[in-house]
């Protein structure tokens, strides 16, 4: 197309889009299509063009004229709408679009699911009402074990049925269901229940995330390095985590990850109770008794599991001070903000 024509098109496209009043609309209409307007002028000048180019010039001129007429019509609708003298009701007539949000806990779960999916993990789940067998016995916590505390579990029907107290219970179900389909790589978020009075810092229901691997020849080095990836994913590459001895009945050796306090960097402050470190969860090599009770031979197969609570992390990330906010509480999302 003729360079000059293209320039005209661009120039008026912009100009028309900026028109907001009827007055300006009329001025522009006259400027373009009036008797002494631009297009009349251009059609008049057609006679000065070389005969062999005249036909295509005329066609292009018509295309541009039609396009600008269309834009003018479109803009005139907008202008008419916005200058109506009064809106009929108190509906928000102009707002940014309402945006939907995932719950911050879901958001973290997905972030971790995506991370582990890349390593070949499935996502798993199991019931929340569980039996003593899956919540305790299969996790190397027999009856009368000191790790049991009746006060801590919420029972549906004592002593057999209770609400799961930890995501390791999902591991019990997983190991039993998939003991014939090894190796296993699975990760699972889950709600877990404890018989705690609800207040600012405790709740009877909270969220944990756990990952489980069963394979041949797994080591504590694999465990620690994989768990470290999880913390770096959540907290960023600069996070300092130490891995130390920690007791959990379902693992041995047990490993406790502690994050260096983000507030005092290890010096000690009220946030970390002056320890300089914050306990992040639990992990370890799956206890041979746990593998055995699922029908997996611990002489051939090894496993590791690691888990962490999601609520504290979510609270720190979103600057939430009261754990009750997370569930049925004062958690809210700005309607127009991602």
């Amino acid at each position, binding site marked *: 197309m003729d360079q000059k024509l293209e320039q005209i098109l661009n120039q008026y496209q912009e100009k028309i889009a900026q028109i907001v009043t009827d007055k300006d609309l009329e001025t522009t209409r006259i400027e373009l299509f009036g008797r002494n307007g631009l297009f009349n002028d251009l059609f008049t000048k057609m006679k000065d063009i070389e005969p062999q180019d005249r036909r295509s010039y005329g066609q292009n001129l018509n295309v541009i004229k039609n396009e600008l007429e269309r834009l003018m019509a479109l803009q005139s609708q907008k202008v008419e709408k916005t200058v109506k003298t009064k809106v009929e009701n108190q509906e928000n*007539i102009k707002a940014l679009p309402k945006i939907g949000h995932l719950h911050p806990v879901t958001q973290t779960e997905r972030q971790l699911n995506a991370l582990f999916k890349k390593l070949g993990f499935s996502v798993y789940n199991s019931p929340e009402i569980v039996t003593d067998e899956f919540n305790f016995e299969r996790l190397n916590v027999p009856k009368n074990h000191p790790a049991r505390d009746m006060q801590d579990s919420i029972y*549906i029907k004592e002593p057999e049925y209770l609400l799961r107290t930890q995501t390791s219970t999902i591991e019990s179900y997983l190991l039993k269901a998939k003991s014939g389909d090894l190796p296993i790589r699975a990760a699972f978020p889950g709600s877990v229940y404890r018989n705690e009075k609800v207040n600012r810092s405790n709740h*009877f229901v909270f969220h944990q995330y756990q990952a489980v691997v069963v394979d041949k020849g797994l080591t504590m080095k694999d465990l620690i390095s994989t768990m470290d990836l999880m913390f770096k994913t959540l907290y960023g590459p600069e996070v300092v985590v130490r891995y130390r*001895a920690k007791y959990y009945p379902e693992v041995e050796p047990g490993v406790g990850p502690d994050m260096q306090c983000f507030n005092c960097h290890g010096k000690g402050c009220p946030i970390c109770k*002056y320890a300089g470190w914050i306990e992040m969860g639990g992990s370890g090599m799956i206890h041979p008794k746990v593998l055995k009770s699922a029908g997996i031979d611990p002489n051939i197969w090894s496993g590791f599991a690691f888990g962490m609570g999601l609520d504290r992390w979510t609270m720190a990330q979103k600057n*939430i001070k009261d754990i009750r906010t997370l569930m049925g509480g004062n958690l809210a999302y700005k309607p127009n903000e991602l």
Partner: protein
Amino acid sequence: MKLIYSQLQKLLPDLNVVPQKLRDDLTMIGHFTNYFEEIENEIVFDLDIKVNRGDCLGYFGIAKDLGVYYNIPLLVPQITLPKTLENLDIPIEIKSNDVKRVLALKLSNIKVADSPEWLKKVLSLHGINSINNIVDATNYIMLFYGIPSHAFDTAKTTPYLIWENNNNRFDKFTSLDGSILDLNKETLLISNQKDALSLSFIGGNNSGIDSNTQEIIVEMAIYNRSRVRKDSRSLKTVTEASIRLEKDLDTETIPMAFDQLINLIIDLGSGQITSNLFEKYLVKPEIPQIEFNAQKPSITSGINIPIDFVLDVLNRLGCKIEKTGELFLVTPPSIRPDITMEADLVEEVVRFFGYQNIPITEPLAFKDVTDITPKEIYLIDELKDKLVDLGYDEVLTWPLVSKPVDPKTVITTQNSINTESIYLRQSLIPSLQEQQDQYERLKLFSTQFFEIGKIFFQEGDKYIEKNSLGIYNSKAENLVSDLEKLGIKGKIVDKKYVEIILDDLPKPNSYAPQVKNFKAYELTSQIITLDANVSFSDEKDPVELIKHYSEIIGDKYLWQLIITDIYKDTKSNQFRYTFRASYFNIDDKTAKDIHLKSFGLKN
């Protein structure tokens, strides 16, 4: 548990690391140490002792661990008690099967007095009140060796001391501190036939030592730990003694600790031994012999731990080691009942080799393992994304609720201490209604949100769980059209709510959910909404205006900004825009100030 550095050094004279390092090392080997502080010229640590390490509820157990870790000797004081002045047997009878081992002695010419300052200080740093020299001695030995003991005033205990389970003989027991406890049939107690004098973990107020006491019987015993645990739980009484006696304590440590106790009492209360030693050893520890592959610590940890080190650590822990072919036969010390199998030995070795020596390297590499993700997880992820795309917010509500929907099928919790919330929810809708009420209390209107969660029913003796989706929309007509867009049907309740059981819907074979960082806020007060009229001589793009003023007000307090009205004044030819701004986590006055300032308005 508290740990005083100078007391620890009594057992480990060569221990001289700086407190900071001791704190970190204790934590690394499994005794999480919160902090240490200097109090009254003493350095005091605060430790969490895990349930499997009853031996570490005394200085002795911790010192043993540290002795192994630092490879320094543990000093066990050797004591020879004076001979008894009288050839007399204490009349003690053990009728209960819950007693493992008891030692007892009679001491006469006791002078009950205040404890010396050093003892008062140690006890007070451990949060224990000083009573008198005799009681304080038993508490000090409990702190040191982890084994509780008790002293009876013989004037109050004649003619017998009987260890027995209650068998409904006594209804009530008044403890040292005066609390009255209702005894159970099985409660383990010590009686003199007429009265219950003591429970396994707390003394009675009828047999305690007072300023007139001249003669005492001192006993130290270890019981079946589950008995103590049940007694302590059922009587809702936790003591320093019950915390220890409900763990696996070492009956073999009793003679040493008991001698130390008698020695200390004589030291402090100038008494004399006037009976033969009473001893009943009914349940001896079952000490396992463990087949042990010395390569196993290296195989499990993934780093090379030399066999010399492995055997040396086990030796220092007090294990007996015999070689049998390729393997070793390891007998752990009685003070470590938590060591029963090879995995336990592996953990000990790695613990003392140091977890810090395991390097952080490559995480597991990708492996193509069968996808065992249940299909409903894909469905849930997909629905959440679709709802978010339609502008819905996700909420989570309490799975335990205060009212059943259908009392016939509701599942009730038996022991929930939150007595307002004892039913497992049967529907999400009442919970969403509560959430909406909560939002309205916060003056948050025009909301639309959803929850996906479990609902629960009982059918006969079966417990049923279903995945459910609940949706709320303040605009009823939008709810209907959104359900159409989602292609799902459900019964609409109260015009604005709908619930759909997901188990009945078709499920996708796979789904990759969106991973995004969403902002969310804790509302600490009501939303404050204020209007503002602003006029311009020309017409503006409303969206640009909203962006412009949002920036002026700032993220910190602005919840939402909309334009509710645009009006053209034909006389002045001005365009008047009515803004509605909502502010959050801010008081009325500050909101108003910010509002006026941001829109350039006068008060």
